């Protein structure tokens, strides 16, 4: 047997994906945002030069895709400059934006800078969602942006975050994507991390809702075949096997948080693990040598039931963050797996939320207010955590 780590190191592949979280600033305050609760702690953003260096180093290692995200990446005035540099280095450049703050001048500047793809996410707050579905101003703006995305020959990818409050409108949402002539549609079920996790009681859809939504999604997948690719993934809380999170820890994904922390996944910052910062080390050192990136590489770290399971190469034991949030130990089996001793607890929790949803729908209880993602709430949460 080889000692833990050694085996994986020799055949360690380079990162393929660089996710550049340029900032956690954002004009919106979606309660289903998966950014960390501690966004207020990330005031110290990397400079343009830092980002350029990171992009160069990751590209040299082999990263081919770069995603500019946040927060809202349009908030950074150097976005065009960074896109230009990324394109020059040979990345396929993806911008992941809410579209707020976008206008034709900026779309054109980004095109000139070499941007390959804009993904417009419809992840506005509830009121705005209703706004755009109802055909008011925001919707007009989104529609205009979508039209421009087409006019400038970007592939049009629409991403809609799905949760209990909008899942019943899935037909309207899909109609809208048809009208906007989207090439790809991602109906992304909310993932319960960060802000969405503290709002899970209000956001998790019921099985019934999911079943209905799936029928509609299938109908549109059939209808739009060859014109638009519609991807619909249900929340993993309703599955018996976990997702192969990030295709394996430190296997292909590299996230850089606004302050320069290098992470194997944009949720991993919540884990009690030390991660390197690209202000102090090179991307290559962070990827190859840091204890943080090597923590869950290979299979040696696994506990039972994963350790002796013949499916471990398929799903890597699921999501480390989910295991941490639900069991207190990130090395445990993801409770989504029905082999996990904690799976029943997850089922019970889902059932509790479904009951709550039914009571709300019948107006027997008042829905708890959503916690909106903003700096004020973040400061409050950070403060409360410090007081405990």
């Amino acid at each position, binding site marked *: 047997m080889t000692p833990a780590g050694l085996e994986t190191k020799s055949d360690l592949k380079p990162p393929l994906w660089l996710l550049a979280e340029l900032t956690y600033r954002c004009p919106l305050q979606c309660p289903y945002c998966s950014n960390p609760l501690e966004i207020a702690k990330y005031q110290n953003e990397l400079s343009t030069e830092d980002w350029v260096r990171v992009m160069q180093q990751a590209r040299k290692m082999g990263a081919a895709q770069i995603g500019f995200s946040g927060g809202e990446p349009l908030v950074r005035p150097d976005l065009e400059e960074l896109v230009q540099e990324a394109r020059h280095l040979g990345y396929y450049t993806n911008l992941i934006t809410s579209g707020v703050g976008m206008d034709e001048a900026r779309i054109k500047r980004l095109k000139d800078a070499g941007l390959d*793809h804009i*993904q417009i996410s419809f992840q506005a707050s509830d009121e705005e969602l209703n706004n755009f579905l109802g055909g008011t101003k925001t919707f007009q703006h989104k529609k205009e942006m979508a039209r421009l995305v087409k006019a400038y020959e970007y592939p049009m990818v629409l991403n809609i975050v799905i949760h209990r409050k909008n899942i019943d409108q899935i037909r309207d949402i899909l109609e809208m994507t048809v009208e906007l002539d989207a090439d790809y549609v991602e109906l992304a079920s909310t993932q319960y991390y960060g802000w969405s996790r503290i709002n899970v009681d209000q956001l998790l859809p019921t099985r019934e809702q999911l079943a209905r939504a799936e029928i509609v999604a299938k109908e549109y997948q059939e209808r739009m075949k060859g014109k638009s690719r519609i991807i619909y993934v249900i929340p993993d809380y309703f599955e018996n096997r976990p997702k192969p999170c990030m295709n394996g820890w430190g296997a292909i994904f590299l996230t850089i948080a606004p302050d320069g922390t290098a992470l194997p996944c944009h949720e991993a910052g919540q884990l009690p693990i030390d991660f390197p910062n690209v202000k102090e080390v090179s991307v290559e050192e962070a990827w190859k040598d840091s204890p943080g990136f090597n923590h869950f590489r290979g299979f040696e770290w696994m506990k039972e039931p994963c350790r002796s399971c013949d499916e471990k190469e398929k799903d890597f034991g699921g999501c480390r963050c989910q295991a941490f949030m639900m069991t207190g130990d990130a090395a445990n089996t993801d409770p989504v797996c029905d082999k996990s001793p904690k799976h029943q607890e997850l089922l019970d929790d889902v059932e509790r939320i479904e009951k709550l949803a039914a009571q709300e729908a019948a107006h027997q209880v008042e829905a708890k207010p959503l916690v909106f993602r903003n700096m004020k709430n973040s400061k409050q949460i950070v403060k409360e955590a410090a007081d405990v």
Partner: protein
Amino acid sequence: MNINKADIPEIAPTFRFQWEEVQDCYVVLYPEGMVKLSGSAGEIMKRINGEHSVDTIIKDLETTFSENKLEDDVIKFLEVAYDTGWIRNKK
């Protein structure tokens, strides 16, 4: 897709075709994804530039690799490439 040998294909603007040093192969890049191409697929894609006709591409490949009867293989690959949207005919 019915391919006409006079067709002039080009890489669709929503896809990018390029050499990847680290992967040691040609790749097609698209939103959040990448397909690695085999050696022969790379050679075909390399010749698609909105100027050469399908016929020219076949002849060029046959000369370069001193082989004849490459037509079927090339057409078969092009069909896939049109269907996945990587290439389109120049208007």
